């Protein structure tokens, strides 16, 4: 259901000293579009995610959202623009409870400036329950929760804060089959609600079933973009390994 262009990255380059992590990457994500980013370890996926989420600034290049050129100096800047990121392992702090994690960095305060714990607990409970009705006890330590429950907190948080672009870094890597299916349902639901989704994954089968477009990265460069409906798993895997499009159907750097 891709419609308008939401985010455009032009010629994004990132160097760490002498290491060229990204070399002139171009791509875009539309509203209500799921774009998957695939590639081997070291291809540049994480660096690109961290640039989009404000953790790193690009050495060169331009990011624009809804045709406005922007630069992020911190994750707060990215979130102000509606970019929410769900990290595979770094989404939650184990020592904090669910409401504290849900509102981390954006805490609700009372009139006197203290933490409004009651309101945060209520809002977190309601938001997560809307997503996962089995999630009953938000007072439980996050450490004791399953991977699916942790993902539910992170996804509910992104929805609560009106994400326009949701970046999901290996969202199902730590999940079992039923929890993975739940996350897939959520991704489809968010897409139908107009949220743009950047899905970073090693699982080609997963992205073939979810993505509207698949962007393949190798050695910091986009080697091609394919549409799952017009492609095959083998073709994508071949691009990841060989670093170049196999067929005429591949669309370069959309």
């Amino acid at each position, binding site marked *: 259901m891709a419609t308008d262009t939401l985010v455009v990255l032009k010629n994004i380059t990132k160097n760490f000293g002498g290491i060229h992590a990204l070399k002139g990457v171009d791509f875009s994500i539309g509203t209500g579009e799921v774009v998957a980013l695939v590639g081997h370890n070291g291809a540049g996926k994480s660096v690109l995610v961290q640039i989009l989420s404000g953790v790193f600034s690009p050495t060169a290049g331009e990011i624009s959202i809804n045709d406005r050129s922007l630069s992020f100096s911190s994750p707060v800047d990215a*979130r102000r623009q509606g970019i929410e990121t769900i990290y595979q392992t770094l989404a939650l*702090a184990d*020592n904090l409870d669910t409401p504290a994690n849900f509102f*981390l960095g954006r805490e609700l305060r009372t009139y006197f400036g203290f*933490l409004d714990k009651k309101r945060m607990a209520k809002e977190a409970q309601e938001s997560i329950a809307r997503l996962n009705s089995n999630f009953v*006890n938000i007072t439980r*330590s996050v450490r004791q929760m399953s991977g699916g429950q942790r993902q539910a907190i992170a996804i509910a948080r992104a929805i609560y804060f009106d994400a326009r672009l949701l970046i999901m870094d290996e969202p199902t890597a730590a999940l079992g089959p039923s929890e993975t299916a739940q996350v897939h349902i959520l991704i489809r639901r968010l897409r139908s609600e107009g949220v743009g989704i950047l899905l970073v994954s090693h699982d080609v089968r997963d992205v073939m079933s979810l993505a509207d477009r698949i962007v393949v990265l190798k050695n910091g460069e986009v080697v091609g973009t394919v549409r799952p409906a017009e492609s095959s798993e083998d073709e994508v895997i071949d691009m990841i390994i060989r670093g170049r499009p196999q067929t005429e159907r591949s669309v370069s750097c959309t």
Partner: protein
Amino acid sequence: MHIDRSTALQRLNPLINLVTPIWVVLAVLVIVVALFFDRFLSPQNIVSILQQGVITGVVALGMTIVLIGGQFDLSTGAIVVMAAVVAVIVGPSTGTGTFLAIVLPILLGSAVGAMNGLAVFWAGANSIVATIGMQFLLMGVVLASVSGQHVRADNISAIFTGLAQSQFLGIPVSVIVFGSVALVLAIVMNNTVFGRHIYAVGGNIETARRAGIDVTQIGVATFMLSGALAALSGVMIASLVGHVSPTSIAHYEFPALTAVVLGGTSLAGGVGQPTDTVAAILVLAVISNVLTLLDYQYPIQLLVQGVVLIVAVAYYAWQGAKV
């Protein structure tokens, strides 16, 4: 009648959270000791127990905050010495002198804390090594500036001596200061955004950073707090005795660290409560008091303190392994 057990438990939860193991240990200890020693619950003895823990207690409270933030501050012993020496040298004889003798050491303590914090959170130094380095540096500066001599102030004002020696409603002012610091820190840690961010930084610094928290700012603030509180302890020592021998009041950091760990603050960061540090300080003070009542000398007291610390660390490790 149907009772929703989970709701009832949730209502009780804040109360259950308040009753941590160290408070249970303190309660049991007080009951058992009171059964065996009539003198234990006498007002003078209770005041003496409270007073005994105050100096170490204030240092330990600051250290608790740094440890919750995921770091160590071993420079506090030297900050105590520096603050005590500065307070005495400033000469708290006049009104202005008294004000400066209290405020200047505390400002210097926070400045040292800021340097520690920047070394750790901005430059990326290991906090144990950086703060031990700061300890050597400070002790060197203090000893050199007083030529290793005893420093003494003349005509100390009543306000300054009152800080540690006077009483209000029968309670020593130093105990009131300790209790107030603990109360304020408990509120800050549990009810403010700043406190919440300290727990987040100590629990998982990368998650905190990605949540948009300025981890350097938070980390430096924890060290500044620790430095200011260590300096407050030094001022109280100066107020208590009126003269300072720099070498004899060193090494407050290890008894303080003992209390912090005994109170359940995690050495890995992210877990701990100032109120539990208070309970731990009281446990150590009661044990020390009992040993004194039994006429055991200092070496035995050290030995018992060591055993208590090892048992506490083993208990918390076992608790952590259960989660």
